[in-house]
């Protein structure tokens, strides 16, 4: 691998957490990718916003509840998480319905800070435009 290459990676999550495996296997790519010291950003839009909702319980469907793993993203230095406002609005959700994902800022005496930023659809387009590598799950 070429040493020292840093690219803007954007993981776009558009699907509901359960029903298909895409959300889980996307998260696995993010966790592995975190070891590569790239500039990583996560985006949640469309039904993808359900992936980071509070209070998920998969007991009734027998599949793995991987929602708690999102809370570990901060420890992997994945702390730029963008959620599209229009997608929340269209589903009757607000930021309060989402898990409070945070990270500890090493440049600010390890203060705990929110990783989630709510952005407009237009801002999301800019994020996509400014990325070098985009994974769409």
């Amino acid at each position, binding site marked *: 691998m070429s040493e020292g290459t840093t*690219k803007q990676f954007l993981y776009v999550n558009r699907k509901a957490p359960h029903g298909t495996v895409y959300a889980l*296997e996307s998260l696995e790519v993010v966790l592995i990718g975190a070891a590569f010291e790239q500039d990583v950003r996560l985006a949640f839009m469309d039904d993808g916003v359900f992936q980071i909702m509070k209070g998920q319980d998969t007991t009734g469907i027998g599949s793995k509840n991987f929602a708690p793993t999102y809370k570990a993203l901060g420890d992997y230095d994945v702390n730029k998480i963008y959620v599209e406002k229009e997608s929340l609005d269209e589903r009757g959700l607000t930021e309060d319905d989402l898990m409070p994902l945070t990270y500890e800022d090493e440049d600010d005496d390890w203060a705990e800070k929110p990783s989630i930023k709510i952005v407009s659809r237009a801002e999301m387009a800019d994020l996509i435009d400014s990325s070098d*590598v*985009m*994974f769409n799950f």
Partner: protein
Amino acid sequence: MKFAIQINEGPYTHEASDSAYQFTKAALESGHEIMRVFFYHDGVNNGTRLTTPPQDDRHVVNNWADLAKENDLDLVLCVAAAQRRGIADADESKRNGKDADNIQEGFRISGLGQLIEAGIEADRLLVFGD
């Protein structure tokens, strides 16, 4: 240009693998480089040699294997995705205590790091799937 390809869907149910194949073939014919083809999600099912389509249909798995042989392509199946879906080479089969393997010659099994590395090294990463 140096391309990397990601395929997220299995053969026959979805056209993703066919489209990726056609793109890869056309890109190579135009003198571009395909540095890696990475199979993820159900895409790992493109790498089993047990695939037996009707004779009047295309053979998606063999198409990839033949193209790889002619062009020295790097066809990589994600190990975690492959384990979930029962795709194994001899080593994986042994390691997991299975009685058989089914990987098609020309494919190899490796980790997700290969996908990230492809994203870093290629000029463009193209993702085929929904």
